[in-house]
């Protein structure tokens, strides 16, 4: 026998910690159907029963306006749920009970967890659990989720309730007073005319939502054959209630619910001590008028360094490990298609996926830590004014800044933004923030065409351009896609709490593994496709392979000293690869497509090698740093400088042969900044925005915007007299 328990509660009530404590590490993380709200479920065994627990998104209400609330409301109403477990924050009981008044209307058995009783006790709030049980009509178990106190009792209770052996769940509902109850009864009668409507949710619950003027409830009614009768009754009810009670339905119902909660709290809990709480003392510093921003910047700098500087160490190991593997395979396997697939396709593809994992895990761990301590809400509080001007939310700030390390985890970090609109806009503009992979391209290009000082200036300018564009696009997208009022900024500043290390570790693991399984496949497939385009048909040319082998043997026969032989062999390899790539499908595509880029990269139509840019940029779709290594192959010049020289052979070749001028080089940098997010970012956008459409949109607007700005760069530069 298996039963399903829905875990419901406000944000910050310790629900997820409790969920971890109940189910251990056996979780399944996915998305709710059709939306990008995370669905976490797990199971535990108790007294021979298997109990499935589903962690609902934390909500203040079930009014089904936000994605989170809709998911929670729909799941709670579904027949799948056998028992509702409502987690209450003991130190913030009144507001937490508002949701309970709605849960009690759903007609399912409800049990309660009074969580964080230690916090409440510290604030001088003592709660009479027995009295609370009586007034709520359901069993109440006090717990301290982060110390697993009360968990065995809770498990035992859930097993008893699941077997249906307890009579402790009585149905208690809020009494809305004579007038409202009268109208509710009339509405219920009309609703019950449609049996199908009646079966989907308790009529009283639907009637309440109608009186609250809930759009989702009205939509449901509109689909019913009884919709006319129900609407007529609703109009009559409004006409009666508003003048009679001096407020609209939504206000009246909220007042009665809070009335119930307030009365209950007065009955069962003592008032908190006067005086400043530890949270207030911390906030006196952390959100201080002058200190708040410097402290925030300091914390941000710390998170950034830990993620991208510390995270770079394992990242380098992984990259070097795969490089060594690929070199080893290349040296020991016969040259040919399969070897190339392995050495140039599969191994770099897998590497391109795994290389992200350490940074994702570290950054997500930091963000979970900030979120769980309660600081994330303060960060949003501090930065909201600035971000609001940009058409974004205070919580968008951290993803945007982290984007300058790597866009992939930055987009994942946007999960902390509750409103779907704000989150989507943040996700869509983050790719404009210049990441560290693009920096490698700038360094090569700027180092070739500018003096060191001007090169540094150009590189800094790229970063500012990226941020500026993100801000601008944020505003444009806000007004183009989401006309109408922006979502309200009504954000709780929860008490500071010490996070549970285990929860943070579980969170890091989940983010890392979700990335590997979901985004990994996309990146891998894309990398293989790009390999195919840039190697065929040359790689299958037996003659070329034979020639290459002969040349190698000829060099080997010379019996040169070790280092010189190696150099010669490397030059041969580069020449062979160059021959393949420069005749590949990608090269043909490049020749066909180069007129498109002519206005920005070849305005005088004098560059014979302009098509090579297209190959490099196409390869850069896999990961931006690949632009450099691809250039090395197509220009047949190594990207590593010889000892004692400032420019690498690739840079010399670019300077002397590519035909790029400082101005078109700058345009190339601008285009590289914007033209498309890398595959990892695209895969992450697809996952976090919930559709390929948004991922495609990001690529498309990037290409258009990148082209446009590169063109402006060239046009403005020429107007100012630069070549």
């Amino acid at each position, binding site marked *: 026998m298996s039963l399903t328990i829905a875990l419901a509660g406000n944000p910050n009530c310790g629900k997820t910690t409790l969920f971890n404590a109940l189910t251990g590490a056996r979780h399944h993380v996915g998305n709710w159907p059709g939306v990008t709200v995370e669905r976490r479920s797990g199971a535990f065994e108790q007294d021979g029963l298997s109990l499935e627990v589903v962690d609902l998104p934390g909500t203040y209400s079930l009014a089904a*306006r936000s994605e989170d609330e809709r998911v929670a409301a729909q799941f709670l109403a579904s027949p799948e749920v056998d028992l509702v477990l409502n987690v209450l924050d003991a130190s913030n009981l009144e507001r937490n009970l508002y949701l309970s008044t709605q849960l009690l209307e759903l007609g399912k058995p409800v049990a309660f967890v009074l969580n964080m009783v230690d916090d409440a006790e510290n604030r001088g709030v003592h709660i009479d659990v027995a009295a609370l049980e009586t007034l709520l009509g359901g069993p109440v178990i006090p717990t301290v989720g982060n110390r697993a106190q009360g968990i065995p009792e809770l498990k035992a209770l859930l097993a008893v309730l699941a077997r249906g052996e307890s009579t402790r769940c009585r149905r208690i509902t809020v009494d809305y007073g004579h007038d409202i109850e009268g109208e509710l009864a009339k509405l219920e009668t009309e609703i019950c005319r449609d049996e199908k409507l009646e079966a989907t949710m308790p009529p009283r619950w639907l009637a309440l939502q109608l009186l609250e*003027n809930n759009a989702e409830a009205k939509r449901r009614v509109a689909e019913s054959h009884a919709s006319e009768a129900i609407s007529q009754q609703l109009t009559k009810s409004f006409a009666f209630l508003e003048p009679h009670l001096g407020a609209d339905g939504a*206000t009246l119902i909220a007042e009665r619910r809070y009335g119930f909660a307030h009365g209950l709290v007065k009955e069962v809990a003592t008032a908190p001590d006067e005086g400043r709480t530890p949270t207030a003392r911390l906030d006196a510093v952390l959100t*201080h008028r002058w200190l708040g921003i410097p402290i925030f910047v300091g914390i941000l700098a710390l998170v950034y360094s830990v993620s991208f500087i510390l995270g770079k160490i394992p990242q380098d190991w992984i990259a070097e490990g795969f490089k060594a593997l690929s070199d080893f395979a290349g040296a020991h396997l016969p040259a040919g298609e399969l070897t190339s697939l392995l050495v140039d396709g599969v191994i770099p593809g897998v590497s391109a996926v795994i290389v992200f994992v350490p940074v994702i895990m570290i950054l997500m761990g930091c963000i979970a830590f900030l979120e769980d301590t309660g600081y994330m809400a303060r960060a949003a509080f*501090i930065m909201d*004014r600035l971000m609001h001007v940009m058409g974004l939310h205070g919580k968008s700030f951290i993803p945007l800044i982290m984007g300058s390390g790597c866009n992939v985890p930055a987009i994942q970090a946007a999960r902390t933004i509750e409103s779907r609109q704000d989150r989507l806009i943040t996700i869509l503009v983050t790719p404009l923030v210049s990441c560290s992979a693009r920096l490698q391209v700038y360094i090569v290009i700027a180092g070739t065409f500018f003096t060191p000082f001007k090169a540094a200036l150009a590189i800094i300018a790229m970063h500012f351009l990226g941020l500026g564009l993100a801000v601008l696009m944020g505003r444009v997208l806000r007004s183009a896609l989401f006309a109408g009022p922006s979502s*309200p900024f*009504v954000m709780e500043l*929860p*008490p500071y709490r010490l996070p549970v290390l285990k929860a943070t570790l579980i969170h890091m693991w989940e983010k890392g593994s979700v990335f590997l399984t979901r985004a990994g496949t996309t990146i891998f497939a894309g990398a293989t496709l790009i390999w195919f385009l840039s190697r065929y048909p040359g790689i299958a040319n037996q003659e070329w392979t034979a020639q290459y082998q002969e040349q190698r043997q000829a060099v080997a026969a010379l019996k040169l000293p070790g280092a010189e032989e190696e150099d010669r062999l490397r030059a041969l390899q580069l020449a062979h690869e160059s021959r393949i790539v420069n005749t590949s499908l990608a090269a043909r595509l490049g020749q066909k497509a180069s007129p498109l880029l002519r206005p920005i990269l070849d305005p005088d139509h004098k560059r014979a090698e302009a098509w090579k840019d297209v190959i490099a940029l196409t390869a850069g779709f896999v990961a931006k740093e690949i632009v450099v290594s691809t250039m090395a192959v197509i220009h047949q010049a190594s990207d590593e400088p010889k000892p004692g020289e400032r420019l690498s052979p690739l840079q010399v070749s670019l300077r002397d042969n590519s035909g790029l001028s400082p101005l078109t080089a700058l345009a190339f940098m601008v285009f590289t900044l914007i033209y498309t997010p890398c595959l990892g970012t695209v895969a992450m956008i697809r996952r976090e925005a919930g559709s390929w459409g948004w991922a495609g949109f990001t690529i498309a607007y990037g290409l258009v915007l990148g082209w446009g700005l590169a063109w402006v760069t060239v046009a403005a530069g020429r107007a100012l007299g630069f070549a």
Partner: protein
Amino acid sequence: MTQNPSIPLSDLQPGDQGEVIQVQAQGQIRQRLLEMGFIRGARLRVEKLAPLGDPMELVIKGYHLSLRRDESACILVHRVA
């Protein structure tokens, strides 16, 4: 009893206390504010403004909440001593 005049919540200064008269916003914002406890007669205290002057932090129903000026301007309150 003399009633103080009704003013928008955004006019209260840090340290001021108030009592909610009415939420004037419409639609989604209205419902959200009601759910968060801005019902008639609810007591609140303005804690502080964010370093850049907006949003504001206030205490209502025993918990801390932040609101932008856009939202706090459409909540009518009495100032309470």
